[in-house]
């Protein structure tokens, strides 16, 4: 067990280092801005004092690493600075704290992602298992073709196809997912139905394909051959012999696809005008609101890294070979 905890600790340390370097990259990217961006943010009519005050607020007179550590320490305490938007050339500052913009939207995104995960993970695993149980049957082949198609489609095609069918032709669900916190739960869920469904289809395709591949890979192992020669049923082989060994690859598949969800969520939120962090980031990119972009990127990258780390750790913990060291 000592060896195991050592490996896990090493992985966690590596994850923290990756997070730190990522934050450096995200902060460092801001250094690539052209020198006159303060003027660009405030507008051409901004007076010299306003520009100077803005530059002082950003501490542009300080060296990069001082600003980086300031930024990092503030970020760790939940302060991500002030947004660029809402600043006028007159010097009148109506900008909002980045954290006030990001926090409410983040809970929306977590809700959407959580709903999607709750539907797609069991469904994908079940279908993946069924595909392996009935390997080579029409069910397996049909599933394979559907999945291959769904992977090659852009996310917005699936989203709009759903809107066309379930919102426009047969108005079952609303096409706009403009939820608000004061909405009743059933109303909110019905508005979230289509975005969650689109994300589920996208994620499930990937997840099922990888589950199936991982399981089929295990099915080719010698111990499965032995089990077959013993005369065991395919069901028993899959559930009793293969499944315990499959947890590690399956955990990786799940975490990997939840990380993929991050990318899908951006497009799907924009399609349905869902007030989440993905849409916020796209809006901020369009208006070049750098602090908001940075914070969103940090949130997305952080989630991505943590999920991948989780997959690694689960894969290590569930590996039967590591649990019983020789």
């Amino acid at each position, binding site marked *: 067990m000592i060896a195991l905890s050592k490996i896990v600790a090493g992985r966690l340390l590596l994850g923290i280092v*990756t997070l730190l370097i*990522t934050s450096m990259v995200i902060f460092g990217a801001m250094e690539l801005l052209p020198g006159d961006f303060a003027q660009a943010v405030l507008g051409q009519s901004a007076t010299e004092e306003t520009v100077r005050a803005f530059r002082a607020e950003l501490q542009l007179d300080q060296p990069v690493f001082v600003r980086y550590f300031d930024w990092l320490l503030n970020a760790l305490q939940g302060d991500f600075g002030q947004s660029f938007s809402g600043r006028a050339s007159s010097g009148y500052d109506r900008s909002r704290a980045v954290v006030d913009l990001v926090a409410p939207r983040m809970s929306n995104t977590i809700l959407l992602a959580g709903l999607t995960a709750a539907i797609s993970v069991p469904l994908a695993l079940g279908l993946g298992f069924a595909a392996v149980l009935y390997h080579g049957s029409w069910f397996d082949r049909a599933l394979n073709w559907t999945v291959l198609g769904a992977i090659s489609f852009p*996310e*917005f095609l699936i989203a709009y196809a759903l809107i066309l069918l379930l919102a426009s*032709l047969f108005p079952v669900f609303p*096409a706009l997912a403009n939820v608000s916190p004061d909405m009743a739960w059933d109303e909110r869920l019905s508005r979230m139905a289509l975005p969650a469904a689109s994300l589920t289809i996208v994620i499930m395709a990937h997840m099922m394909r990888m589950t199936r591949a991982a399981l089929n890979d295990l099915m080719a192992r010698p111990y499965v051959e032995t089990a077959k020669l013993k005369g065991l049923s395919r069901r028993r082989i899959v559930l009793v012999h293969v499944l315990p060994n499959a947890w590690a690859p399956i955990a990786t598949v799940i975490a990997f696809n939840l990380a993929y969800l991050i990318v899908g969520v951006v497009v799907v939120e924009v399609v349905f005008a869902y007030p989440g962090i993905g849409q916020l980031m*796209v809006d901020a990119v369009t208006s070049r609101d750098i602090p908001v972009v940075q914070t969103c*990127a940090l949130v997305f*990258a952080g989630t991505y890294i943590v999920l*991948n780390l989780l997959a690694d750790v689960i894969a290590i913990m569930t590996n039967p070979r590591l649990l019983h060291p020789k």
Partner: protein
Amino acid sequence: MSTLVKTMALAFNHGRLTVICALLGVLVLTSVFAPWIAPYGEAQVFPEPFAPWSPEHWLGTDQIGRDILTRLLYGTRNSILIALLATVLAFVIGGIFGLIAAILGGVLDQLLARLTDVLMAIPSLIFALMLLSIFGSTIWNLIVVIAVLESTRVFRLARSVSYGVVVQDYVEVARLRGERLPWIMLREVAPNITAPMLSEFGLRFCFVFLTIAALSFLGVGVQPPTADLGSMVRENANLIQFARFDLRAGITPLVPAIVIALITVSVNALVDWFLLSDGDTPNG
């Protein structure tokens, strides 16, 4: 397997290949000859916005009265061209660094590998969004940003495939003969990794194509008035709500999205066929 079954499977495979090639051929030809095929100009505006399908405008007109069929032809051309340029650039950058890392090895190799690890720790769509917000969305920025981000994956593959080649005797001979790095890269190593790199090119192209389509769809990729498949979907998305009154209008926004899907599906299928038929590739 009996000979008959084998022949039938082969014929089926060839049939599928023919379909894929025909589809890709049509898409590529229409995009190459878009300026000659298209009935109107790329940004030509007609008085009636959101016109229905008609003999004059086969797919109707968009929100400011541009012919959608024309936009579709030009958009396919632009989207393919931009994605192709970005992919080629990614392969040039990633390939060169991958080969250098594999041939020289040592500290440089480790350094480059860790650098790509960091770059790959951030989802590429998020990274691209961040970089575009800093540099601004022009077509060249888009191409360079995507190319640099994708080059990390090309680097990985080029490096790992080249590892098996650089230890071969003929590379050692070239080294002892006193050949310089470019010669070893281009004449000794590169020819021996073409097969895996070629299939990777297809897969990377699909990924780049989808990423650029997504970015354009989000409004931060290809900018108007340049036609592009991703932004066309978004521009015409409002038409979907009229599907109950005019199904054809409702389908219109989906057409560019379906073209995107057709391109990625057929390129993917081509890569699959290539991998199946070419069994003796290293690491294939």
